[in-house]
């Protein structure tokens, strides 16, 4: 067998399997077409300032979507990110200001709490913990992710209300506001953070063993288990990752708005999931990636920004985004059926 084989097989070429990218390219081409249309109708759309503005608007969604991509790649879903974001933002603000509710209501700008890094650490810590608990329920109690995180959606929002006593925590110092409002050169800070984490996640998913395992589990959990992968540990970890991004985003949003509110992030989970799915990551797991997610999120941001510039009512914007979601996924399936 071997001798014959050596003769028959051509030297293996390092060909790229483009089919893996096509679904992501679908979203990219829609994005480009829409950008061109906006640029023609409303030249102000392509000014660098406006483009950075778009990026800043989507950076919170984008961070959450990076985490969500990991979860969806494993066939899971995380509906709790918006609520966990609100809770984390309040915790960050309270740690920074040294208290919650009425205590902080009037006092402007003065840091009397535990400092900036403690605030960021607390927000991220709450996110990690929330994600870990949900991951535990999913892997140990075997409750489906949809249900567990639906519970999280409600419970974390409740915890946010309980924690803050229904009062927002507002007005921070400049060092706190810098993370959401500041600029590095001409690039907004949240944009830098979003793109950095997107790049990191891209590398993790593409080049590390862990990334491989995430795809493998989403593609076929049973085959992954029989191949000796620790399916439970990896499944748990992706919820910790979304938790991390929810925590970080909670802090960033409070900084950007100069206020941590218990109603922050309401409905974000749906926008984020929409972005991930538009970007070509399959809800059935195992296919897709960060590149597509960034495109998907940008698409949503560009639409909303462009339509606003064109004075289209925000109500209409929602309708358009809804149609785009369905259209993008239809396009994706059309391409896949062709293959």
């Amino acid at each position: 067998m071997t001798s014959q084989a050596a003769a028959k097989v051509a030297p293996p070429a390092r060909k790229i399997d483009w089919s893996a990218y096509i679904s992501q390219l679908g979203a990219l081409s829609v994005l480009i077409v829409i950008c061109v249309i906006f640029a023609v109708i409303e030249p102000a759309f392509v000014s660098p300032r406006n483009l950075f503005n778009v990026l800043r608007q989507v950076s919170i969604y984008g961070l959450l979507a990076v985490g969500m991509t990991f979860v969806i790649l494993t066939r899971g879903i995380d509906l709790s990110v918006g609520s966990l974001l609100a809770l984390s933002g309040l915790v960050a603000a309270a740690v920074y200001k040294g208290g919650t509710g009425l205590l902080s209501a009037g006092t402007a700008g003065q840091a009397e709490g535990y400092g900036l890094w403690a605030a960021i650490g607390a927000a991220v810590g709450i996110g990690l913990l929330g994600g870990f608990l949900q991951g535990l329920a999913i892997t140990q109690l075997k409750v489906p992710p949809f249900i567990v995180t639906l519970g999280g959606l409600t419970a974390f929002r409740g915890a946010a209300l309980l924690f803050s006593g229904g009062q927002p925590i507002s007005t921070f110092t400049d060092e706190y506001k810098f993370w959401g409002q500041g600029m590095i050169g001409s690039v907004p800070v949240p944009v830098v953070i979003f793109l950095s984490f997107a790049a990191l996640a891209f590398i993790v998913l593409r080049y590390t063993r862990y990334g491989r395992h995430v795809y493998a589990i989403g593609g076929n959990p049973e085959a992954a288990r029989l191949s000796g992968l620790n399916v439970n540990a990896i499944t748990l970890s992706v919820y910790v990752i979304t938790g991390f991004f929810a925590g970080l985003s909670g802090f960033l949003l409070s900084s950007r708005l100069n206020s941590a509110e218990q109603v922050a992030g309401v409905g974000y989970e749906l926008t984020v999931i929409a972005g991930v799915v538009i970007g070509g990551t399959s809800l059935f797991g195992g296919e897709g990636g960060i590149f597509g997610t960034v495109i998907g999120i940008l698409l949503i941001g560009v639409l909303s920004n462009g339509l606003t510039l064109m004075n289209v009512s925000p109500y209409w914007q929602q309708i358009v985004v809804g149609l785009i979601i369905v259209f993008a996924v239809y396009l994706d399936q059309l391409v896949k059926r062709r293959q």
Partner: protein
Amino acid sequence: MDRHSALLWMENVSKSFPGVQALDNVCLHIDSGEVLGLIGQNGAGKSTLMKILSGVYTIDSGEIYYNGQPLRIHNPHHAQELGISIIYQELNLMPNLSVMENIFIGREPGPPIFVNRRELERQARAILDRMQMHLRPSALVRSLSVAEQQMVEIAKAISRDVRVLIMDEPTSALSEAEVETLFEMIDELKRSGVAVIFISHRLEEVLRICDRVTVLRDGKNAGDVLVKDATREDLIRMMVGRSLDQFFHRDEHWGDRAVHHSDDIVLEVRNLSRRGNAINPDAVVLDNVSFTLRRGEILGLAGLVGAGRTELVRAIFGADRRSGGHIFVEDKEVDIRSPVDAIRLGIGLVPEDRKAQGLILSLAVRVNMTLTHLGALTRFHFVRLDQERRLVEEYIRRFDIRTPSMEQRVVNLSGGNQQKVVIAKWLMLNPKILIMDEPTRGIDVGAKSEIYELMHQLAMSGISIIMISSEFPELLAMCDRIICLAEGRVTAELSREEADLETLMHYCTLREQVVSLNQSEGVVSL
């Protein structure tokens, strides 16, 4: 009897699938009030034949007469209208609905839209009473035992005025007492003129309940006998035939391997037991299975569907829980709780269903192949892609895996090449023990012989292989020793010299009471 007087008459029925002639000029007939046994090895064509009768498949050629009239069965609904019903091994009920709703599903009495529950209950009760089934019409199906659910299936068939009832392995999940009840019910059906086709591996039961037996082998008729004229041995002989022996060149490699494999025991399994499966939590799946595996040996596991072969290897590999028993690897007792443990001990598993369990179809050949071996190709969590590509290239060349590139999604490969990817995945780990569950299922003849050759080379290199196959000739050709399983029990361990098709079939169809008979008197009598 001829085509005009028989209730059902099938003549020269043929059916082929890509690459397989599933049925080749098969004839079968049955009369009202007759119980016909249909037997044959795995893959003999029984299921295809039944799927033709129940309207799932249409025939390529041949004729079917029903009540003396020529007939084509178009679809399952049509079959039911004709009075032909089938009860599959995996029962087909709605667990969340009641007995009566299941019996009349889709044909509820009363006006459309609203169901007349009282009428439904009355009609259901009439059928249950007539068949002496002690079931409450309003009981939820999921609260019933397997035997009771089977009764609901029978009642459902009766409510549709069944004329021909096909039962596929109806006793496989039943206890002795439940089998008796089922047989009483079959007698009752017989008295009311229903023709019953009884498919079973349990020859004793076939000989007891049936009037006549039709035997299939390799998609052809292999015999048709009246039960009163037949013995168990006759049936076995018809099932296995004699023609297959020369198919495999069994002794070609045998000599060199015999010298090669040593007496070192690599794996010992002692009293492995498992209770409970998906259908029945009390079912005995594995009953005190013990065996040993030597270095460089190919050990075969023979058995019919439901014998527990796959369950046994999954339990060893840690994929399923076991309820008792000990496993020793190289004389040390080990506690295998998950595939991770098994892999650490040098055990690999090529699973029975390559697509559902062996591969991640959406991912590339390269990714699938290195999935278990990734740790060795990783530095600081990063996969060393160059090293990985080189290794994958080497295995693609070594096993002659035909793929346009290693980045090709594995779903696009042929069955044989997919299987080679799975085998390559395990060989990268350099395993001591490789378990191969149906390694040649669904792959073409050329790829099969490549896999045989590969297995032989692996054994020669000192890897011990446990091979499961439903094709007895394949086991006889490849294995140094064969263990026969029946209903979760080891019924025989045969050396290469002792094993032949009839002996294998004999031990694989042996049931408990026959085993004890055999042991106490040294004879198998029926």
